[in-house]
């Protein structure tokens, strides 16, 4: 059994175990065990990957396994992983592990909650390990549907409305994506009976330019909808605000990364000429979503809305960097995905814990929590500093790589847009500090928030795993950036070979 398919098998086994469980109390223990095992597997995978690379294995994808699925359409269940997907898998396992512990006190329908949560995780893991477009698309859609139930049943506020809006918009994105994939499939090789869905084989063939011009926007916008591209981001604030803690952690932390990763791996890697040609439209859109998201966050009153808008801004940055199509910017985009994934999961986790205690998310109603719940407040400050790019935490590494990379672009227009994007670090600082100042510092305004219980053990585990990984990337980014950089190299070579700009 190849190691990669284990990543899909373990969650499925966990789900079946939960199904067979009678007593609902053990449900969270079983899922914690399952996801803990998954985290362990991720660590093993990273170790194996690095040792394989160390031993001089230089082919693009490692641990490649290929099972024929539908012979007539040449669809394979092909799995393989390179530095980038290993990084994404470790991110996902970390966030899922923290998510499980953040939802320790779910009351209604415990079993169904954990089943849908882990189903979502299966979809995401499947997406990251597969290199066959069809399997990738199947896992992509599999990951979106549990969101409806998770937000609809366990959410708060206008949960039906936002659950429906979120699902429809994301499925709308995947609809465009389907047409894009079919376009790529039917142009994937000159002679008709060699058509393939396999990314590696398609990348060896130059898709004719008119086809690229038609299908690149479709695919990029299809993934962009999930990656919070500007006009299609409106599902994110409502969706996150009414989702339960763990769900918004998983969604913003991991699911939105599917969009960025997909845009990079499918849209740009397979259709570089069209990507380069049409990139100026999407550069404008993504830079709007960065600045727009940051400004939007300043004026919000609800904690979750602030974080939702900041996720729009950070994910916009990812798409922006991916479009720059040079080695540094793309590596920066991947690191930004990982760092933002961890940070936003941390933020949503903490917001959920604060909401669990004060039962309100309006920052005006709360104040001076530092004295009342010191552990959570300190973690919140650390999360805030990480998200505004303090050196020594992962935000800085990601953003600096993107800015320096984006600034290496030969054309002046791209460099001027980069300077506009760089100003987003100030706006981020404004809204982060605004929240920290109102929420945590200053005297306690609300009398019945005088003595709230501080973090329980499972909350501590969830928060510490995330802070630990954020600090690890921040302090020693070398291992991560080289891991991603080396596997970015062949991709960049292929892109530059086709259109040396």
């Amino acid at each position, binding site marked *: 059994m190849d190691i990669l398919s284990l990543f899909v098998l373990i969650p499925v086994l966990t789900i079946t175990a939960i199904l067979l469980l009678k007593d609902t109390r053990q449900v969270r223990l079983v899922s914690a065990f399952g996801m803990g095992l998954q985290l362990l597997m991720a660590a093993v995978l990273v170790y194996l990957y690095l040792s394989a690379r160390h031993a001089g294995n230089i082919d693009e994808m490692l641990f490649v396994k290929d099972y024929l699925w539908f012979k007539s359409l040449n669809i394979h269940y092909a799995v393989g992983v390179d530095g980038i997907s290993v990084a994404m898998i470790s991110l996902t396992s970390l966030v899922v592990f923290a998510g499980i512990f953040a939802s320790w006190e779910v009351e209604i329908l415990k079993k169904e909650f954990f089943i849908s949560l882990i189903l979502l995780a299966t979809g995401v893991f499947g997406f990251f390990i597969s290199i066959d477009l069809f399997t990738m698309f199947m896992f992509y859609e599999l990951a979106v549907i549990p969101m409806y139930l998770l937000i609809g049943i366990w959410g708060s506020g206008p949960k039906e409305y936002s659950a429906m*809006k979120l699902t*429809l*918009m994301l499925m709308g994105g995947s609809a465009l994506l389907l047409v894009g994939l079919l376009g790529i499939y039917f142009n994937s090789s000159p002679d008709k009976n060699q058509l393939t869905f396999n990314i590696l084989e398609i990348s060896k063939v130059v898709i004719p330019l008119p086809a690229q011009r038609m299908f690149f926007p479709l695919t990029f916008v299809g993934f962009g909808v999930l990656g919070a591209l500007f*006009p299609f*981001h*409106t*599902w994110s*604030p*409502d969706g996150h605000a009414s989702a339960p803690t763990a769900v918004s952690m998983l969604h913003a932390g991991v699911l939105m990364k599917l969009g960025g990763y997909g845009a990079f791996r499918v849209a740009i890697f397979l259709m570089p000429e069209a990507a380069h040609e049409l990139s100026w439209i999407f550069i404008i859109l993504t830079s709007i979503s960065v600045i*727009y998201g940051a*400004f*939007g966050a*300043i*004026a*919000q009153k609800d904690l979750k809305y602030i974080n939702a808008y900041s996720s729009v801004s950070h994910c916009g940055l990812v798409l922006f960097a991916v479009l720059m199509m040079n*080695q*540094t910017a793309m590596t920066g985009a991947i690191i930004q995905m990982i760092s933002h994934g961890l940070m936003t999961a941390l933020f949503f986790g903490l917001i959920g814990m604060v909401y669990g205690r004060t039962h309100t998310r309006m920052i005006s109603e709360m104040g*001076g929590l*530092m*004295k009342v719940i010191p552990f959570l407040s300190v973690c919140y400050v650390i999360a805030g*500093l990480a998200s*505004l*790019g*303090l*050196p*020594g935490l992962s935000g*800085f*590494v990601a953003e*600096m*790589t993107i*800015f*320096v*990379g984006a*600034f*290496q672009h030969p054309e002046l227009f791209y*460099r001027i847009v*980069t*300077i506009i994007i*760089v*100003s987003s*670090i*100030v706006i981020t*600082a*404004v809204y982060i*500090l*605004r929240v920290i*100042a109102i929420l*945590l*510092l*200053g*005297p306690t305004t609300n009398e019945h928030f005088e003595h709230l219980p501080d973090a329980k053990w499972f909350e501590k585990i969830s928060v510490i795993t995330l802070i630990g990984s954020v600090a690890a990337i921040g302090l020693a*980014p*070398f291992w991560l*950036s*080289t891991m991603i*950089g080396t596997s970015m190299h062949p991709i960049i070579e292929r892109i530059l070979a086709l259109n040396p700009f």
Partner: protein
Amino acid sequence: MINFSYTIWIPLLPFLMFLLLGLAGHKLKPKLSGLLGTGGLGLITILSYVTAFKYFFTSEKVDGAYQKIIASNFTWLQFTDKLHIDIGVLLDPISVMMLVVITTVSFMVHIYSLGYMKGEKGFERFFAFLSLFSFSMLGLVLATNIFQMYIFWELVGVSSFLLIGFYYQKPSAVRASKKAFIVTRFADLGFLIGILILSFNTKTFDFITLTDPMGTAIAQGGGIAFLGLSVMTWSMIFVFMGGVGKSAMFPFHIWLPDAMEGPTPVSALIHAATMVVAGVYLVARMFPIYALSAPVALNVVAYVGAFSSLFAAVIACTQTDIKRVLAYSTISQIGYMMLALGVSGYGGHEGLGYMASMFHLFTHAMFKALLFLGAGAIIHAVHSNYMTEMGGLRKYLPITHITFLIACLTIAGIPPLSGFFSKDEILAAAFHSNKLLFAVEYAVAGLTAFYMFRLYFSVFWGKDTHYSHEPHEAPATMTIPLIILAVGSVVTGFIPFNKLVTSDGKIFESELELMIAIPSVLIGLLGIGIAYIMYRKESAVPDKLAATFKYSYKWAYNKFYMDELYLFITKKIIFRYIAEPVAWFDRHVVDATMNAIATVTQGVSYRIRGFQSGQLQKYAFVFITGAIMLSILFIYLWK
């Protein structure tokens, strides 16, 4: 080659101390954590003294110039093949001088805080933040490349945010820390843009390759022009913008007076000696580029420095809170240093301004720290910040009184003290290159003497106010640093800076120009005299004077309404006219279009529900017309 690899411990030790106190601080007894912090600082002070001695006196010089020694260096993050961030230690005259300054002042502040902060609730948190600050400041100073400097630049910003907001219960402290962080963050944005432009053109971050006069960076600096100025000038102006933010020069000075909300040792350490001079250090570090390939930027530095010093000196004369007076005097003194750098040339005697600025930085650190710690002792005794509520303290606080007097005399530029030598060098440098700036600085020297002694007389002399309870002299741990610093500010005047710290590392001869020294002493005495008349004894002269210049006094007192202007910009413009419309736009336009699609489909489905009328004959009618329409379509219209 002397082995300097141990110097990596100088920044590393405070970082470990920060981790120790930060994580395990609340478990240790406050006393122990305080001693741990101070001990750590003491150790690295000794280390830096040893390094300074070995560097200046034992390491050999290549054709007369001190060498830039990379003690250790490792790649932290690889961007492109040529651009990568390294973390390491670079030793050269200004960085070793800064090492000495930072560690000395920090050590003094640590000892002082043992006394000042005793009994405070967050005692170990305070020392943890102090160690974090020392780590980031040392890291900044020892940076081998511009990106490492940017990293520690941000860390310094954050530690100042944490320290200013130490009393997080006080809303004013929270507001002040937030303001400080955002203003400096805005300036750091400029610094980052400068780095990006610089690195794009010169393809490197390292200081050595950048600042090497014969190197490629400077040679092709004048290259691609963009909107009139050469790209190198643009990058230097942006980099200087970062310096302006951190050193509280004119446009971004508003955060420094509010930063006084933090505990006084913090103000002494950060807002007098170390952090605020980071801007000066940055310009000094990049000086070869400024001087050789971006002279326009150097002029900008000079004029910003001059204007800030004049502007701050005028405001300082009207302030009543003693810490705010000292804060504005700091802005004014740093304006001095910036001016000195601005008017200096490169190499040999031309670099007099550079040497003078570094010299003044060194001496200013000593006596300004002393002034702040003295003010701390006064506030500690009287429990109030305002001069108006003090008077005749010389009887109650003898040691503070004497040390404070020495510091005031130094800053006023009275001969035997260090202030006189360093300020005189600056005035000489200014005189040789730019007469207008010399005149401005000359006036500022007078003003400085006036407002310092206004402070001194109204606190220690003036009316004998009766205090609610007997003000007592500060305990030993607070007075010892005062004495040491007082001795320091006396002795440092005689250090031959022209042999140690020069723009190109070579020694050059410079003697005291009496032609400038005498007038500067005279203007100093004049300032003291006026202050003596107005404030020595209870007198109505100051109020009468204030009445006559009613408007200008009111304006100066309210800091020329700069705070209100910034508040207006941030609150009104950014919040009301950008953030809220964006949020509204997102809620009512982008979101509304998505909902509109849904409502349109619902509307259409409502309107066409009539088709399904339940009438059999209507169905048949649609059936037949459908068939006929299709056949017409495909026979005639759409072949």
